[in-house]
C-alpha cells in the first residue's frame, strides 16, 4: 500500500510548487470534471478548490457508485430485504439511500435482516453459517469493486454455497465518460480520470474514448499533490495542446491495469445496457451475471415485485451527477435535503457531491 508515503503527497511545499505552476499556466476559464467520488471527497477534504485560480472550475461527475445506482435498482434491493428467509448484505453507503417507499435502514429498523459488510466475502461467510437463509449481497460499484464480487461468486460455486447470491447493479466508467461527452448540458474541458478504477483497467482502457473525443484526460491519484499534478497537466494540455491521455498516478496505475482481475470479472459478468441516475440508459455501461452463474444471481433466484419507481420530487441529483448543476443550485439542498434527512443519494453517500458540499463548504 502507498499509505506509508501519504505524507509526501500531502507535503505543503510540493503542493505550493504545483499551485504556482497552475497559476502561471492557466489563462482561460476551464471546466474540469473529476469522475470519481473519492476525488470529490479528497478535493473538499484538503480544500483544493480554495487554492486553485478562479479560472479553474472543478465539476463533480457521476463517480459515486451509490449515487448513480438507478431508483428501480434501489427499490429491488429494498424488496429483497422484505423477502422471508433472506439476509441482505450491503456496503454501508447504500443503507440510507431512500427508495421510492422505504430504505434499507428503515427495513432494518423494522426487523428485516440487513447487515453491513466490508466485502462480498464477508457476505459469503454469512451464507455459509446460515445455510437455511438466502444471503443476497448488493453488488454496486465500478470496476474497482466488481472483480472482488465476481471472485466471491466463483468462490461460492467452488465451495458449493448455493444460498449466496448477488444482486448485480455494477456500472462501468468508460461508457459513462462517453455519455458525458455526448450530453449537451455541459461542456467539459478535461477529465480527471479515476485512480482506483484505473488500477484495474489500466490507462489503455480509455484509449478508444480518447481517440473519439480528443479531450484532455489525466488519470489521477487521491492525495492533494496527486490531484494538483493532474490539474496542472490538464491545464497545460488545454493551454498549450495537444490533448493527451496521460497518467499522473503511475505509482499505482499501469498501461495494462490488472489483467487477472479483469479476467475474473469477465468470467462472471457480461456487459449490459444500464441506467445511470441522471444520465439515463447508456448502452453497454452495466454488468450482469452470466447465465452460467444464474444460481448465484439474485435477480434470477428471488423474483421480487417493486413499486413503480419514482425519483424524489424536486431532487437535482441527476443534473448534479453530470455537472450541469452544483448542489447549492438545487432547491432542496440544505432546506429539505440534509445528511440527516437525505432526499437524494448524492446527499447520502459519503462520496456524494451534495454531502461533500454540505459537510465541507459553507
Amino acid at each position, binding site marked *: *500500500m502507498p*499509505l*506509508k508515503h*501519504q505524507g509526501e503527497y*500531502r*507535503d*505543503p511545499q510540493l*503542493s*505550493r510548487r504545483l*499551485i504556482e505552476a497552475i497559476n502561471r499556466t492557466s489563462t482561460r476559464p476551464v471546466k474540469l470534471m473529476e469522475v470519481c*467520488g*473519492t476525488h470529490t*471527497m479528497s478535493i*473538499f*477534504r*484538503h*480544500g*483544493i*478548490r*480554495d*487554492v486553485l485560480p478562479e479560472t479553474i472550475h472543478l465539476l463533480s461527475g457521476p463517480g459515486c*457508485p*451509490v449515487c448513480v445506482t438507478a431508483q428501480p435498482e434501489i427499490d429491488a434491493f429494498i424488496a429483497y430485504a422484505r423477502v422471508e428467509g433472506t439476509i441482505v448484505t450491503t*456496503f*454501508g*453507503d*447504500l*443503507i*440510507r439511500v431512500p427508495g421510492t417507499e422505504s430504505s434499507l*435502514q*428503515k427495513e*432494518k*429498523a*423494522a426487523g428485516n435482516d440487513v447487515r*453491513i*459488510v*466490508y466485502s462480498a466475502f*464477508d457476505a459469503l*461467510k454469512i451464507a455459509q453459517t446460515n445455510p437455511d437463509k438466502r444471503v443476497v449481497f448488493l453488488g*454496486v*460499484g*465500478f470496476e*474497482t*469493486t466488481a472483480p472482488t464480487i465476481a471472485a466471491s461468486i466463483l468462490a461460492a460455486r467452488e465451495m458449493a454455497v448455493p444460498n449466496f447470491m448477488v444482486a448485480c447493479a455494477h456500472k462501468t466508467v468508460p461508457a459513462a465518460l462517453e455519455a458525458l461527452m455526448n450530453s449537451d448540458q455541459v461542456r467539459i474541458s478535461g477529465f480527471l480520470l479515476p485512480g*482506483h*478504477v484505473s488500477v484495474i483497467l489500466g490507462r489503455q482502457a480509455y484509449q478508444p474514448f480518447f481517440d473519439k473525443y480528443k479531450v484532455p484526460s489525466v488519470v489521477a491519484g487521491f492525495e*492533494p499533490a496527486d490531484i*494538483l499534478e493532474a490539474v496542472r497537466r490538464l491545464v497545460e494540455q488545454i493551454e498549450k495542446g495537444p490533448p493527451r491521455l496521460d497518467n499522473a498516478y503511475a505509482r499505482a496505475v499501469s498501461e495494462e491495469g490488472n489483467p487477472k482481475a479483469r479476467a475474473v470479472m469477465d468470467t462472471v459478468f457480461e456487459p449490459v445496457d444500464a441506467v445511470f441516475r441522471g444520465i439515463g440508459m447508456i448502452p453497454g455501461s452495466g454488468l450482469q451475471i452470466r447465465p452460467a452463474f444464474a444460481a448465484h444471481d439474485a435477480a434470477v433466484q428471488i423474483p421480487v415485485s417493486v413499486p413503480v419507481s419514482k425519483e424524489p420530487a424536486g431532487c437535482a441529483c441527476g443534473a448534479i451527477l453530470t455537472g450541469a448543476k452544483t448542489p447549492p443550485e438545487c432547491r432542496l439542498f440544505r432546506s429539505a435535503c*440534509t*445528511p*440527516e*434527512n437525505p432526499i437524494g443519494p448524492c446527499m447520502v*453517500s*459519503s*462520496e456524494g457531491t451534495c454531502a461533500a458540499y*454540505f*459537510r*465541507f*463548504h*459553507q
Partner: protein
Amino acid sequence: MTSEFISLDHGSGGKIAHRLTAELFLPLFDNPILSDLHDGAVLKLNDSTRVAFSTDTFTVTPLFFPGGDIGELAVNGTINDVAMCGATPLFISLALIIEEGFPMADLTRILQSIQRAATQAGVQVVTGDTKVVPKGAADGLFINTSGIGLIPENVAIGSTGARPGDKIILSGTMADHGMTILTQREGLAFDSAIQSDSAPLNQMVAKILAASNKVHVLRDPTRGGVGTTLNEIAESSRAGIVLQESRLPVGDAVAGVCELLGFDPLYVANEGKLLAFVPAEDAAAVLEAIRSDAFGREACIIGDVTDEHPGQVVLETRIGGRRIVDMLTGEQLPRIC
C-alpha cells in the same frame, strides 16, 4: 421526530442523536442542570459543596479488544465524564444486564478488570445491581455505571466557556478506540497493530487544574470524535474554532485503516483523550502538565478559538485550503471503493 423507528444513528453521538435529545428528552425533563448538556451534571449541594454526577451505559462488541475490555471502559468512561466537570471522582455504581448463558469465566474476567480500573483511578464501587435476561434479549453483557465526584473550590469548567484567544489542546492521538473496535468486529480482518486508548483521565485533570486556574473547557471526545465535540463546544460557547490539519495527531496505523475505509479520524471515538481550552498565556503550562501524565505524552495544541464564524469549526488544510468541520450526522459508514 421525523423517523418512525430508532435507528443506530440515534445512538451515534452526532446530529441525529442530538436531535433526539433536544426534541424528545429535553422538553420532558427540562431543568437548568440538564440543559447544560455537559458530560456530567454539576450539583450545588450547599454554599461550599459542588458535586459532579454522571452516568453512562456501555455496549461494545467484542467485549474484549486490544487495549481493554468492556469492564475497564465502563469505569474509565464514567470517571472521565465526572473529571471533565473539573471534579475528583470518588464513587461509582455498577449495574449489569447479563444475557442468559453468558460464560462465568468472562464475567469474572470483566469484574476483575473493573476492580483494577477502579483501583487505578482511585474510586470505589459503592452500590450495584445485576439483572439476567433470557437468551437473545441482550447481546452478552451491558454495563451501566454512574459516578460522583467533588468539585474543588474556584474551579468553573463548563461546555460554554470557550473564549476567543483560547488555545485548544488535545491530549494525544485521535481515533484509536473507534478504529480498534471496528477492526475487531466480526467480518473485518485487518492485521493492524492498533489498540484502544481506554484510560482514566482524572489524574491528568488534577495536573491541569494545578497548572492553571483559568481552564475554560474540558471535554473527552468520545462518540462522534474530536470533530463533533468541538462543534458542540463552538455552538454552546458561541465561538469559532480554527484547527490546523498539520497538527492533528493520528497514529500511522490508525491513519492507514481510516484511509482504507474512508473514515475521517476527526469523527472516530476516543476513550482516553481530552480537549482542554485554555487562555494563550496558560497554554504552555497546561500542555506541559498534560504531557507529564502517562496518558498525555503526545498532547499538542491543535487550534485556536476565534471571534470569527461563531458556532463553526474550520480546518486549515496542509496545502493551505480551508474547509468546514461539520458535526457528524449519524454513524460513519465504510465507503464502497
